[in-house]
């Protein structure tokens, strides 16, 4: 019983610790500050919420972030799913090398990957901007997509596919009607993870964006002059959208689980 109380308290403290900075971000989007820096609480206002996009460049930066996150998540999830299928379903030579090659990007610090890509683009005289950032994001998302989808494929029953084949479904039909629906939650999770990783990436983007701005790059630039409250407004909006997306994801999963039982 005492252990129970102890761990419950600990959990409460831990959660509080994790939430405090988030609350600070949200609270300071309502801060009625008069000075130059939005760092101490001076009263409540809604005025920053009135036109969050009025800062020059902010809306383009957010738009860039959203489209890059969507495209890189889409491409890395598709390519990653193919790799995951190959790794789980087939025995082939070069398997260990493949695994190593997938592991390395996850084991490399972002500064190293970012700077390596920068030297590539400098050496090949490729102008840095939207496309180079997209290429880089697909790269670092890829390994995470493979890991996420693979975890799902490993767990499921192959007999279902064999049953489909026995019932004269060809390979493509089996994939479309049996395999794909089964791995779909993994694919969806991979997409969401990749989207979040890409949207939030600062370091690799900083090395390869040139003069193009994403939301994190915009925030970073703003820290030099004092962060405008509109950034907190957007941060709060992103937080809200993420919470809702997660809620929907959980709800769907829950309903599926219930339907299966």
């Amino acid at each position, binding site marked *: 019983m005492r252990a129970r109380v102890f761990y419950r308290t*600990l*959990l409460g403290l831990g959660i509080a610790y994790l939430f405090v900075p988030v609350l600070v*971000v949200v609270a300071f989007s309502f801060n009625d500050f008069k000075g130059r820096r939005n760092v101490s609480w001076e009263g409540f206002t809604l005025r920053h919420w009135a036109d969050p996009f009025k800062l020059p460049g902010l809306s383009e930066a957010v738009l860039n972030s959203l489209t890059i996150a969507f495209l890189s998540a889409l491409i890395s999830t598709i390519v990653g799913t193919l790799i995951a299928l190959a790794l789980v379903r087939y025995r082939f030579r070069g398997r260990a090398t493949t695994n190593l090659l997938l592991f390395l990007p996850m084991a490399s610090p972002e500064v190293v990957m970012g700077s390596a890509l920068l030297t590539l683009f400098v050496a090949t005289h490729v102008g840095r901007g939207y496309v180079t950032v997209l290429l880089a994001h697909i790269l670092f998302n890829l390994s995470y997509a493979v890991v996420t989808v693979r975890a799902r494929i490993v767990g499921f029953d192959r007999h279902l596919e064999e049953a489909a084949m026995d019932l004269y479904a060809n390979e493509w039909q089996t994939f479309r009607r049996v395999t794909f629906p089964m791995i779909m939650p993994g694919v969806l999770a991979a997409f969401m993870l990749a989207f979040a990783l890409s949207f939030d990436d600062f370091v690799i983007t900083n090395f390869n964006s040139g003069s193009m701005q994403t939301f994190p790059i915009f925030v970073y630039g703003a820290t030099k002059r004092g962060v405008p409250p509109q950034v907190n407004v957007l941060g709060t909006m992103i937080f809200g959208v993420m919470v809702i997306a997660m809620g929907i994801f959980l709800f769907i999963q829950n309903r599926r689980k219930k339907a299966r039982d």
Partner: protein
Amino acid sequence: MTTRTDAADKADRRRRRVPYLLLAPGMLWLLLFYVIPMFGLAITSLQEGSLEQGYTFTGNIGSYVSVFTTYLPQLRNSLMFALGATVIGLLVGYPLAYAIAFYTSRWKSLFLLMILVPFLVPFLLRTLAWRVILADQGVVVSALKTVGLLGENGRLLSTGWAILAGLVYNYLAFMTLPIYVSLDKIEPSLLEAANDLYATPWTAFRKVTLPMSMPGIISGTLLTFIPAAGDYVNVELLGNRNWTMMGNVIQSKFLVIIDYPAAAAISFTLMAIIVTVVVIYVRRVGTEELLT
């Protein structure tokens, strides 16, 4: 085997090609944008020249020499902060994961989501939030002053402590989640068996729970150590110039000063050191699971 028809042979050969076709796009990507750039980084680090006159490959190892003569403090800071963040992260993350795995019957997935909550706010914003929390006039500083842990003019912002706080916070979920996953796999009957065999709770933890959560600990510590060692944002937003890490040097050499060979040498050295540390660590604690 002799009864095999040509058609079956052909189908077999096609089947053997399938995995390579599935792998091709991804592997091509990794080759073009990971392997080749890494070689490029190595080559750049051995070049000489200037931005105006261009760089030529001379096999000059001068850049590497200066890494160890000039940037030793930064190297030390990187390793020290990464190690500190990993140890503190483990001390905070393990009990958290343990509490979720064993003491939250119905609300498990809700608590897991709460661990992820910091990740729903952009990285730079949640780091900036620590500026407010650790500010000189803030609650934390005045509380520490009251209990005497901090002197009259003591502060937290712009010190090593603030950097450490930021690093621990930013990577805590990477530590907690893998540990939770491995703890969650432990069958309660195993612990009951230990209990039946007169193991004290502490012995049961040491002999059953801890060894079984080792894969989670290894993943968690690596997922914290590696990004923390390469970090430069926490220093920039929470610390000061006295605490710059390798990441800061790489960033400024590449993007501000623009001295590619020196920057590449530092970057490559950081990578080599991290890989060495990781390999030794994984060998010592022993698991092959990680690579498969």
